[in-house]
């Protein structure tokens, strides 16, 4: 871990020692700035029972710049597009160095519990979520079953 800022070392240690319930974040063997993340679909959400893989990368000027996070597992969500990119203010202009990997992952977990179709990234999903929420939730469940279970 030579050359790795102490903050990243500390955050990594804490993530390993006191993991966030429902979330695991494990640094890559060859790159301590790259994390393999797994988020469990929150209870009561259409993503319940799903296991979602994400990748998280800490850029060179972290924590002055936000981590880069992307869903790898396909997900039907109005704020996540088909490439897995996430529409979350704290990953963009609302980032602050006081936030951490932990808080970012908690926010993503919360986003799964409470989709925000008024600030969408996946437009067709968002549209359906507003027009026909029942069908949208059914789609989300289907996608969760198809892509996020059993692997």
């Amino acid at each position, binding site marked *: 871990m030579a050359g790795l*800022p*102490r*903050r990243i070392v*500390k955050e990594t240690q804490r993530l390993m020692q006191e993991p966030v319930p429902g979330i695991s974040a494990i640094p890559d063997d060859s790159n301590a700035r790259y994390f393999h993340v797994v988020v469990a679909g929150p209870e009561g959400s259409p993503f319940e029972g799903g296991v979602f893989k994400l990748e998280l990368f800490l850029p060179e*000027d972290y*924590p*002055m*710049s936000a981590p880069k996070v992307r869903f790898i597992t396909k997900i039907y969500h109005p704020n996540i*597009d088909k490439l897995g*990119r996430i529409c979350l203010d704290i990953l*963009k*202009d*609302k980032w*602050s*160095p*006081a936030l951490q990997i932990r808080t970012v992952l908690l926010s993503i977990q919360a986003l799964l519990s409470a989709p925000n179709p008024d600030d*969408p*990234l996946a*437009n067709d999903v*968002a*549209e359906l979520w507003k027009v026909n929420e029942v069908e949208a939730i059914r789609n989300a469940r289907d996608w969760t079953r198809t892509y996020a279970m059993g692997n």
Partner: protein
Amino acid sequence: MAAWLLRVWHWWGSWLYWLMWGGGSTARTSGLPVTIRTEQGQNLSVHIQLTWDMRQVQSAVLAQLGLPAATPIRLILAGRRLAPEVRVGDCDLGAGTTLHAIRVLTHCPEQADDGTQHRPLNQSLVDLEISGGARTQPASSPEAQARRLAHFYVYCDAPCHALQPGKLRVRCASCQDGGIVLAGEPTGWSDVLVPDRIQGTCNLAACPTRGTLSWARFYFKCASHPASEDTPPLYLIRSNLYDVPCLACLDVGQPVVVFECPEKHVSCVECFQNYCRTRLNERQFQLHPDHGYTLPCPVGCADSLVRETRHFKLIGDHDYERYQRFGTEEFVLQSGGVLCPRPDCGMGIIMDEPCRRVVCENGCGFAFCRDCLQGYHIGECEAQTETECSNAAQSLMAVGENAVRARSDVRLMAVGENAVRARWVNADPSSLAIQLTTKPCPKCRTPTERSGGCMHMVCTKAACGFHWCWICQTEWTRDCMASHWFG
């Protein structure tokens, strides 16, 4: 020779030791040359010892003045009459420090004798962060008491080029001399930074307010070398009294930057430097009408802008120069001015009247079109639509690293075989590339590159922040969301 060297080393070594401990209570037997200024304005050079108390200093002064040893005099430093038992090593004295020696006169009104008046200012002031009623309980252990003493930091431009501990000094507002004894106790930074908050009695014969109350003016010096100039204090830099971890790196730094937000967020100095450099590279400093080109607390708290921009000197000379240039460019552009597009010029020009022909009068003399930033021409801007024209213009003048890079590229091109490369210069590959890969923000016209993601653009220029659509090149709307969010 060896012995001489050794002695020099000993002298410096003990000096460094003494400086490191801020003139603490450690006794050292080194001579300290100080200046004694009398009430008549006479200066004496006196060598004193750090182990002496003020009684011994008084004797040395009286001997040098040729006065009887029993002559009652008082020594004044930083607004305080020093009690006879105060030790030299407990005052933040440095080589060349001026002490005032005042004969005790019967008509001179005596201050309330509460003891603190006789202790040096650096020993009686607790940290100025603690102001008004928010003072903490008196600390019991000597270490805790030492930590609670006031700590001041300055940015020393020369010779240190660094953040350094500062010394608080005081002078009389009327005669500008230091022979003043404070009548009140500064309790917060505002007492020290804002003029006319604390009064004192000036003792110098030449002072028009002698014997009556006059205003005290506080100022700071770098404590790391003798005879320093007045240096503005960096009042956000505080001694980390409560071992608060840095908001970014989580380490407990010493000293730290305490932002002025209600939460008083704390950053270590290194993370503050990184924060400033990152924001500078992104051109995210804000131009505030009163405070200048500045930043808020990194957490983004409201009302947390750094009000003393000299704190940004901490980013180092090179980046501070960039900071000043960016700030100036931002000011020129926000004032409706333009920057001269000539390579290596970049002069800021604010036109007196709205005229399309701009001449870089105090710079390179180039006459150019305000709209397209090409050499001045009559008629329409050539072979470019209005949008492209302003785009090209912005590509050279705009705030942004691209503009800077474009300029330096052009300069590199121009060096060498002029005849061959002249065409390259004319073609200006950098600005062409910028034209091809960017679109101007519809509001501020900053050339913007879309590196990926959706069509919803947010202008990264600090003063703009406009939400716009990459396809429509107008304000972002729900229609854009509905029809071409991803193109």
